[in-house]
Every structure is written in structure tokens, then in C-alpha cells.
């Protein structure tokens, strides 16, 4: 029998029992859609957490635990490891910077790095260039926004009050310094966090670059970045306050950067072998992936139970189909249809049910997933009043193609298995008994 004729045969039977087959497909659809949607939560949560981790930190960064200072030799040694792009020393100052321009001023943190290394790691700026001369600095994306004068402060206070009355929050994005900061000179004094509000004498710096916008909407970045060569100047400036020797306010942190994310692992292993206590977010990702693998398997397992319940329907439908057609099967066998062909015809029918059930289930699942991702943040926001949920960087449900393949394999496979016994039964029908049946 040609395959096309087999298909015709099957579709003809299905048409004859439209309602019954439809209900069975519906059950299969529900089982499979349940499986996909349930598992998609696992995939979605994993994706959200992954994005969270990856956007929070530089993926290629290897952090060094403890405040153990590296010697130059050690830094050179680490730099020699394959795929290490750079070892970045970041010096933080336990003092805030008070910057002035015209009638505006702002307070921000200040960090010192080797500007060539920093450029290599940080990459593009939103504006300007990295410093090449002493007394040149790069500032955070929101530096201009936070440079306020008296009028701005009053405006913000007023807008905040209004927003508070409405139950929202005003972030001050409409005020601040409106022109480009590149090329502008600021006066900067330091306020040690340890002492009273004593300020040092003002120093003069030129802004040559502005950093990229931070990855989170809610982050306000007005950090001042300057070259490590400025450290002596800052130390001297601070020492005029007298009480602390400037040096104590500086501490270094070393970060090692790999050239690509894939190379983080081997470097990490080498460093650990070398006795360094190091850490990378990729390790966290690995642990997380193991956890989510288990979670996803669990969810798929639970979803499979729904598919199995639906398979009872398929089994019943196919058993009925075989019983109903006993005489016809007898005639087919009598005129020379092989048992194999008869088995195949019935297996095709149950496979058809499984296949269409899956097809519809996939479409429905994508719709549900899309709707859930769109609606859940709004519902959470309404329920908790928390603004953070409204931003759409949380994925509740994600259906990657792998999940579709797994679910399709499970539900078509289960449909075929549950159709197998009825199909076997069809091949075992006795011709003589079948032909005896009345019409």
C-alpha cells in the first residue's frame, strides 16, 4: 500500500469519528501544553537569573578574594597565563569627592585604575576618550544629572513630593547639567568618610570621557575614574587635613580578566592550583545550571504525568476504533492485507492524535507563555506596589526549541506507545470471527 493511500485511509477514519478524535486530541493537547508551560517556568527563571548575573558583573572577570595585595612579580606572573587579558588593579578611596562646576556641585565616589588596562576592560565610552594626560578624568553616565544647583534641588524636592503623593517615585532625571561634560574643568575636593565634614583644598581636573549607561535602569553612576598616577597627589591633598595619614584611606582590589568567557574556567583552575583564592560568576552560573537542570527535569517529569493521563484517552479511543472496525479489519485481512500493514494503519492514527495534540499544544504554550510574561509583571506590580516588577527584565516563562523537542518527543512517543496495544489487537483479529459479525 502506498504511503499516500495509508494516509488517506487514516484520515478517512478520523473524519468518520471527528468528535471522538477531536476530544482525544484535546486531551493530548492539554497534557502536552501543561508539560511545556510547566517546564517553561524552569527555563524562564533560569534565563532571568542568568541575565541578572551576567548583566551585574563582567563575565570575563575573575575576582581575587581578600585584601592581600599583589606584588608586581605576581601580577606579571598572572598576566603570563594564557588567555589572561589583563590584571586590573582598582584603588578605592575611603573618601567621597565633592565636585564643583559653575554654581553646581555633586558628591561621588572616586576610583583609581591604570587607564590603559581600564580601557581594555571597560571598552566603549558613551562620549569622549580615556585620559591620556595627568589631571584628566572619566566620569559616570549620570554625573551630569547629579550636578545640581539650588534651583534644581528645589525642583526635585517638589517633584518628589508630588510623586510620593501618587505613590510613585521621582528619579531626578529632568534636572542637572545639560551640556556636554567633555572638555569641562571641575574643581574637586575630598571628604574622608572617617572624619567630620572637613573638606580638602580644591584640585582642578578636566573631564575627557563619560562612561556608558549602567545595565540596570535604577543604577545611578556618577563615579569619578582617574589614573593610578594621581594617587600621590590625592594622598598629599588628604594629608593636609592632618588627622589621618592619606595612605590609610586607599585600598587596592585586583581583578583578573580573561579574553573570553570560555577561557575563564581554565584560568580559574590554574590560579587555584597556584594557591590564589579566586572567584568568578561563571562558577555561580555552573552551580545554578546544575540546580536548574534538576528543577527542569522535575518539572518535565510532573508534566509527563499529565501527558500519561491524556494517553489513557488515546488508548480508549484506539481500542474503540479497533473494536468498531473488527469486521472491516477482517475483510481487509481476508483480501490480503498483511498484519503489519494493519498495525501500521492504527499506529498512524494514534501518532496522528499525538502529533496534532502536540502541534496545537506548542502553539497554545507559546501564547500562554507570551501572555504570562506580559501580564504577570503587571499583576505583581498591582499586588505589591513594587515598581521593580514592572520593568520587563524578568522572564517568567521561556520555551526554547529544546523544550519543544523534548515535549514533542514525550507526547508523540506516549501516543504511539498507548496506540501500540490496540494496534496489536487489530492484527490479532480472527478473520473468520470478524466476517461472521453482522453489519
Amino acid at each position: 500500500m502506498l504511503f499516500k493511500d495509508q494516509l488517506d485511509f487514516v484520515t478517512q477514519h478520523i473524519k468518520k469519528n471527528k468528535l471522538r478524535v477531536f476530544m482525544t486530541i484535546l486531551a493530548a493537547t492539554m497534557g502536552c501544553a501543561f508539560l511545556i508551560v510547566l517546564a517553561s517556568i524552569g527555563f524562564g527563571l533560569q534565563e532571568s537569573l542568568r541575565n541578572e548575573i551576567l548583566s551585574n558583573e563582567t563575565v570575563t572577570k575573575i575576582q581575587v578574594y581578600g585584601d592581600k595585595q599583589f606584588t608586581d612579580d605576581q601580577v606579571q606572573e598572572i598576566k603570563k597565563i594564557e588567555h589572561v587579558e589583563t590584571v586590573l588593579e582598582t584603588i578605592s578611596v575611603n573618601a567621597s569627592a565633592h565636585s564643583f562646576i559653575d554654581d553646581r556641585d555633586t558628591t561621588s565616589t572616586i576610583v583609581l585604575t591604570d587607564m590603559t588596562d581600564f580601557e581594555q576592560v571597560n571598552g566603549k565610552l558613551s562620549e569622549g576618550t580615556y585620559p591620556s594626560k595627568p589631571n584628566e578624568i572619566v566620569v559616570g553616565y549620570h554625573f551630569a544629572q547629579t550636578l545640581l544647583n539650588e534651583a534644581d534641588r528645589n525642583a526635585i524636592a517638589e517633584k518628589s513630593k508630588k510623586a510620593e503623593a501618587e505613590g510613585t517615585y521621582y528619579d531626578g532625571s529632568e534636572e542637572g547639567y545639560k551640556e556636554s561634560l567633555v572638555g569641562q574643568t571641575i574643581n574637586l575636593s575630598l571628604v574622608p568618610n572617617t572624619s567630620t565634614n572637613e573638606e580638602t583644598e580644591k584640585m582642578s581636573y578636566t573631564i575627557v570621557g563619560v562612561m556608558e549607561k549602567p545595565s540596570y535602569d535604577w543604577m545611578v553612576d556618577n563615579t569619578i575614574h582617574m589614573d593610578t598616577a594621581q594617587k600621590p597627589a590625592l594622598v598629599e591633598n588628604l594629608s593636609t587635613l592632618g588627622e589621618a595619614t592619606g595612605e590609610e584611606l586607599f585600598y587596592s582590589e585586583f581583578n583578573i580578566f580573561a579574553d573570553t568567557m570560555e577561557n575563564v574556567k581554565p584560568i580559574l583552575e590554574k590560579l587555584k592550583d597556584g594557591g590564589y583564592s579566586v572567584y568568578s560568576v561563571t562558577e555561580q552560573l555552573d552551580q545554578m545550571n546544575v540546580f536548574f537542570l534538576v528543577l527542569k527535569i522535575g518539572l518535565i517529569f510532573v508534566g509527563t504525568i499529565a501527558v500519561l493521563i491524556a494517553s489513557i484517552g488515546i488508548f480508549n479511543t484506539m481500542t474503540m476504533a479497533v473494536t468498531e472496525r473488527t469486521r472491516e479489519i477482517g475483510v481487509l485481512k481476508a483480501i490480503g492485507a498483511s498484519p503489519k500493514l494493519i498495525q501500521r494503519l492504527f499506529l498512524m492514527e494514534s501518532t496522528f492524535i499525538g502529533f496534532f495534540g502536540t502541534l496545537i499544544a506548542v502553539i497554545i504554550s507559546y501564547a500562554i507563555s507570551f501572555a504570562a510574561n506580559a501580564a504577570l509583571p503587571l499583576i505583581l506590580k498591582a499586588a505589591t506596589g513594587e515598581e521593580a516588577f514592572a520593568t520587563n527584565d524578568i522572564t517568567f516563562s521561556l520555551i526554547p526549541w529544546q523544550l519543544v523537542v523534548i515535549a514533542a518527543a514525550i507526547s508523540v512517543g506516549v501516543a504511539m506507545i498507548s496506540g501500540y496495544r490496540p494496534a496489536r489487537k487489530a492484527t490479532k483479529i480472527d478473520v473468520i470471527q470478524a466476517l461472521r459479525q453482522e453489519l
Partner: protein
Amino acid sequence: MIQVENLQHTFLIGKRGKEKQVPVLKGVNFKVNKGEIVAIVGKSGSGKSTLLQVLAGFMKAEQGSIKVNGKETAQLNEAESAAFRLRQFGFIFQNFQLMPGLTAFENIELPLKLQGLRKAMRKEKVKKLMDKVGLTEVADHYPNELSGGQQQRVSIARALITNPPILLADEPTGSLDSETEQDILMLIQSLNRELGLTFVIITHDEEVATIAHRRFRMYDGELVKEEA
């Protein structure tokens, strides 16, 4: 063409553990030549149908040999037997055994589908044969829209469509009135004459037996030759 030797079959009847053996075929011997119409008559319950069913391979004989065109068929398995039927035999049943969901045309086409023929070829063959047996007008009718005689014609056409050398018929006119019976018998006779087809017909009807070249009687589990 067909050679049956010492064919034996016993049924087990009754409740489990208390079965009774009913020997139905007790060593049947007979021969059918090519181009013959052979009639098998006998009392009800004498085992005529059983003989035909064993011959057709619907069930396995306990013992004995069946040779069809020189091929031993008594020990074929189910799949082999089905394939053999599809090539060698056409079946005509008392109650026609048409597929209720298929039209007359589609019923006749069915064995060709099983043989894996392409649609265009099937169409041509079925049309030709329907013309020959006088069914062209009712090609699109479903079995329940056909008279008994028409249904039996469809059933005969279905048996003929694959050009099998042998046709096996169990009471082919048993459900028809005498006028229709005559029609069908004439059709069988003309097919036998024109195409040289071999027929084995089971009947208890003397009328049917008249068209046979030779006649056997089923008696006490054995087949006895009768003078025509």
C-alpha cells in the same frame, strides 16, 4: 491448479477443561483443474465453510497438504498467507462483506491499493471492470445504497480486480432472490468462459450446482465426487 491431500481439522468446543473434540475435516482429498467451476455441496454443518477457510488460509489446518499452483500453502504463516491471498485468490462471500464507508468504486479499488498500485492505474482498471460487470451507473453509491444483486456484483468485481487465477465463493447467491441469483450465475459462467477463471463454489443450492463442471459432496468429513 489446486491439490488437497488428507486435509484434517478438529474443533475444540465447550467450556475450558471440559472441551469436546469435534472432527470436521477427516482427510479431505480433491483436485481442481485450471479453468474449472467446481461446486462443493453438502448438509449444513458438514464442514464446507471450514474447508474453504482452510483453503484460503484464514485458519491453519491441523494436518494435510494444500498445493496451489504447485506451492505448498498449508504451513504458511499469517503474513505469507495474506500476501499469497492477495496474488492468487479472489473471495466472494454470502453477505458480500463490502466496506460500508467506501463507495462501490472504492470497494473494488481496495485490493489494488493493497497491492500498491498508483492512482491513475487503479482508476483505469476499476472503470474497465465496472463496465464489464455492469456497475458503471452505481460507481458512487455506498453499499447501503445498492441492491443485494448490485452488492454481490461489487463483491465479485472486487474479487476479480487483481486478476487472481482462482476465485473462492461461499454461498455466493445465498442472500439473493432467484432472479438475481440467475444474473450472478450467468456472470460467473461468462467470466469462466471468457477469462478462463477457476471457481470453487460452496453451495447447498442445486441451481448453483448446475453451472459447475464437477461437483463434490461433503460427507462425514470427507469429500466425495458426484456425477454432474
